[in-house]
């Protein structure tokens, strides 16, 4: 995995400015997930027809990588699981309600999103990736387990983690907003 430092938006050239933003998270934000300290070092902004979300790239104290997804202030922390314990369904076969076994739990696809990224900043564990619309399938379990099938690559990538409350993350170095 290549970690890209000091990403220069102009160098990529095709990526527009970050859209107007009201996420409370920013580069440098610190927090804890399951007693593991992390720092936010990078970000991908995704947009789709009916909304959008941020994927914040986390680096944990032990150097491992993770993602904090912020979709309209609904938060989830996940990490890449490679290779997936079971093959993921083909993009054409995935629908809402499709199951995926994960550590004895039956996860279910609850959301299908066709999105493309519209901006990046900071450090990301990728060098380059396409701007085409990509299918994402979000899965949920009975214990707040959260997973994503990411069809930007073949075979698709699996991210697994947990949906969390804002207060669970003990976030610091947040943006502050006028009047809030």
């Amino acid at each position, binding site marked *: 995995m290549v970690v890209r430092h000091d990403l220069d938006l102009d160098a990529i050239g095709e990526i527009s400015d970050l*859209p107007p933003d009201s996420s409370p998270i920013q580069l440098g934000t610190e927090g804890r997930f399951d007693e593991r300290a992390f720092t936010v070092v990078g970000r991908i902004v995704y947009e789709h027809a009916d909304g959008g979300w941020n994927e914040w790239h986390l680096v944990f104290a032990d150097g491992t990588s993770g993602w904090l997804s912020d979709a309209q202030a609904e938060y989830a922390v996940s990490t890449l699981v490679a290779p997936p314990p079971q093959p993921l369904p083909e993009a054409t076969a995935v629908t809402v309600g499709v199951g995926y076994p994960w550590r004895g739990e039956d996860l279910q696809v609850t959301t299908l999103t066709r999105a493309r990224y519209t901006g990046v900043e900071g450090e990301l564990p990728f060098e380059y990736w396409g701007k085409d619309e990509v299918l994402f399938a979000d899965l949920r379990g009975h214990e707040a387990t959260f997973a994503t099938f990411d069809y930007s690559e073949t075979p698709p990538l699996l991210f697994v983690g947990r949906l969390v409350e804002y207060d669970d993350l003990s976030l610091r170095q947040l943006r502050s907003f006028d009047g809030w």
Partner: protein
Amino acid sequence: MVATAPLTRGFNCANCGAAVELRALQHTRAVACTSCAAIIDPRDPTVFVLQTAAARERITPVIPLGTRGTWDGQPCEVVGFQRRSIEVDDTRYGWDEYVLFNPYRGFRYLSEYEGHWNDIRTVRELPRLESSGKRTKISYRGESYAHFQGATARTDFVLGEFPWRVRTGDEVRTADYIAPPQMLSSESTDDETTWSIGRYTEAAEIWKAFSLQGEPRSASGVFANQPSPYGKRLKRSAAVFALLAGLLALFVVVRLVSADRERVLSERYVWRPGAGEPAFVTAPFALREPGTVEIALGASVQNAWLGVDLALINVDSGTAWNVSREVSFYTGRDSDGAWTEGSRSSRVLLPAVPAGQYYLRVEPEGPTTSPQVPYTIQVRRDVPSLLPYGIAILLLLVPPVANLLRMASFEHRRLQESDHSA
């Protein structure tokens, strides 16, 4: 120190030109102009009018957009409003939803139907199917929720900002499951199923949290997840009943143990048919304390009967208590075997007789053809009677039974609004 960012941004409505202010910025996927109710895409507000307001009636939310309050311990602002409706048996039922926004904690919602309010949040755990069948049950965080209603909800009117791109005419399939005061609801489209949990909330709580003027309208009917006021009352009245019934049982025990049961008269007589004027009086006896008096008649009748008219008479005042008792006893044998009928003894309890000197006037009557019948008459004072305690128990049962009936009626009215009405 971190930088402070402005959270609001403004533009002019592409439809009517009025100033439109965005309060939740990037999160906002649709904003409905508060002047003309046109729905605008805030990413390109000059062009993107998602829907004009031409044919729509104006609805004024009871909580004005922009209102700030403290909800669940966190500051939040009311940024959006929509009216949605479902159709049941050719009738449309509409309700209102308010979007609450906090830049850190995100969105939550308040809904109102006929004065019934719910505080709604999205849920993180997928509910588990518990049992299907006639009335599906699902479990969430260890609690069981029963299916209440399935419908198609349509968005009819929108004001302000939403975290998704809302359009009037949008339809989602909904399913509601209840465990009052909670309600779990799913909303499904082909691409998404989301679950949310509502907590039935008193309007007064909302009026206070958002410092609203005036009085909330009073709620009519019984709402799906409205907690039954009778559950609590039933519990309370059952507890009071248990306490008083326990006390009463204690009184009964004390009474049974401490009663004197003092024998004041015990005589043997013989009924002789055809012996002329049968009436006679007993020797006087003393009732030394006021209270109950038991008169017992026993007769060794065999295929015969004996009746006795009795009067307990106060020696000094002449006050009389008249009772009559009859004993009869028959035996025989038929195709089913031996049988008996009747009883050889009978008693009567006078509930309240003053202290004093008394005697009995006895007038026996029997069949004129029978042989002689020996019989006994016994009088005891202070024999406990359970009747008043029985009446007391029945009276004590009135409140819990009344609450039970009210609760059943409340649950019936609740179910009338569901897919499971009888």
